[in-house]
């Protein structure tokens, strides 16, 4: 059965392919390959329509929206405490990091600030969710390239980080631990020592992945020089996060803006790479995971004592106003533009999620590559479907 919408799309594809056919001497017909929405390499339900000549991509376009859950609308009919439970699910691998910018925006509107200890714990959990998120990327990268072992290592070691998050917050995937004005609770006893041990394990995991994957000549030949994004193109497409840093842009919101978080209280390094190819993007993420373990350790060393919650009214009404807060999430810049009319819930929330902007470069990037490189490039761009479709 062909739906009418599909027919229109097919006509569009045919017209695009006709343009690409100009330089082909022998008139051959290309093949439209529909990658997804159900395909093992699309991390969910991303659909990529690719026009192929043999194995070469003439034209490709991502088609998203298969998992649209309407969070921006849902937030309009929820109260502020309820929204954090929802926004957890946007980037489901680094869910704690999704709560933070929203809560910060609400706090900015209410003109309160979390106590220092809460800021520290928030930053630690933020970095832990980054480690959990990116370590899965490092394993998944192997699977996309045909190596099956790294993903098992990733699941094995990510489990330790998830156990930490669960031990502190109660939720493995969806902590919902952030509250306006602080945190739900303090850390349980023994958590800090456990975290230090896990951070050592995660550094060992990074070494293992580096030996297994990054040092492998086959991996290098598959990723070096593939999917190169020059610095200016990356900026034009509004990319963010490790994808941008891999193109040589030294830009990290953790360092570059001042938020009531604890990143500026410790020393750490922003990793960049000048190549802008798939290898650079993967390499930057690996280094950032390792750097995050150091950030967590240094934050644990300097953690202040005190309460984790300021005085807030029992029923939270956010005063009228607008606030925009974005943070450097595992996938890139994630921000919330919160408009409040003084009610229990927000009037409007605009969610800027990193993956949507990061994959908008895909049609530009996939032109002329081979089919196997589609997978490598998509893997190295690293998106999460929930983050694209929201």
């Amino acid at each position, binding site marked *: 059965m062909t739906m009418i919408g599909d027919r229109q799309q097919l006509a569009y594809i045919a017209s695009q392919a006709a343009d690409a056919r100009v330089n082909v001497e022998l008139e051959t017909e290309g093949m439209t390959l529909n990658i997804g929405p159900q395909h093992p390499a699309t991390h969910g339900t991303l659909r990529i329509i690719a026009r192929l000549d043999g194995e070469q991509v003439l034209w490709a376009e991502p088609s998203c929206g298969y998992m649209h859950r309407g969070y921006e609308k849902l937030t309009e009919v929820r109260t502020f*405490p309820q929204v954090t439970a929802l926004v957890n699910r946007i980037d489901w691998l680094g869910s704690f990091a999704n709560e933070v910018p929203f809560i910060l925006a609400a706090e900015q509107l209410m003109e309160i600030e979390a106590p220092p200890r809460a800021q520290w714990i928030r930053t630690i959990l933020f970095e832990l969710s980054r480690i959990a998120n990116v370590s899965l990327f490092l394993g998944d990268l192997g699977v996309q390239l045909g190596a099956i072992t790294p993903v098992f290592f990733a699941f094995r070691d990510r489990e330790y980080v998830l156990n930490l998050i669960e*031990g502190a917050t109660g939720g493995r995937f969806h902590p919902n631990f952030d509250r306006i004005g602080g945190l739900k609770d*303090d850390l*349980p006893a023994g958590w800090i020592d456990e975290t230090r041990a896990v951070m050592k394990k995660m550094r060992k995991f990074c070494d293992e992945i580096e030996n297994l994957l990054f040092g492998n000549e086959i991996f290098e030949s598959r990723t070096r020089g593939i999917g190169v994004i020059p610095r200016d193109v990356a900026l034009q497409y509004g990319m963010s996060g490790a994808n941008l840093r891999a193109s040589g842009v030294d830009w990290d919101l953790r360092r570059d803006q001042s938020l009531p978080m604890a990143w500026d209280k410790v020393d750490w390094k922003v990793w960049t790479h000048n190549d802008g190819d798939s290898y650079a993007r993967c390499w930057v993420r690996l280094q950032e995971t390792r750097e995050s373990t150091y950030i967590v350790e240094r934050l644990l060393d300097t953690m*202040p*004592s005190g309460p*984790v919650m300021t005085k807030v009214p029992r029923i939270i009404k956010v005063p009228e106003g607008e606030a925009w807060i974005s943070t450097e999430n595992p996938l890139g810049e994630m921000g919330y533009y919160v408009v409040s009319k003084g009610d229990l819930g927000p009037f409007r929330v605009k969610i800027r999620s990193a993956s949507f902007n990061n994959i908008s470069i895909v049609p530009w990037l996939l032109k002329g590559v081979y089919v196997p490189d589609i997978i490598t490039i998509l893997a190295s761009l690293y998106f999460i479907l929930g983050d694209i479709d929201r």
Partner: protein
Amino acid sequence: MAKVPGLFKGLGVTFGTMVETITKGANTVQYPHAKEAPPVRARGVIALHEGNCTSCMLCVRSCPDWCIYIEGHKELAPPRRAGGKPRAVNKLDRFDIDYALCMYCGICVEVCPFDALFWSPEYEYSEPRIADLLHDKAKLGEWMETVPAAPELEVGADKKGKK
């Protein structure tokens, strides 16, 4: 980096892991035979202390996806002291949580002003049919036994805080 070592290093990692698994045991747990203990704070299932519930409906209203169903009526209880007036108490008729809808966010437990709802780390309550995940107050009451005491807090925490 030299041409060959990269390939051999990868082989070394997998071989090393194999030796480690054979000698030290695997990282996995053979689930039905061995179980991992979830953390004390783990949000496994919501348990109900029926005696504390006054059917005030706060949890129902604060639930982000409205999966709690409460019905109750007022009843006259015998007076506390002999000769006193009979008291009006809220009697709980129905307290159902639809775990097929529940997002395990914990807001209901937090807003409950009478300490009637608790988190239990219990997780083995899957059902073959999705409708069977609607649990009534008798079932929720059974889970009260599995509720652990709140954990000690980490060094430097403000001990005065509530539970």
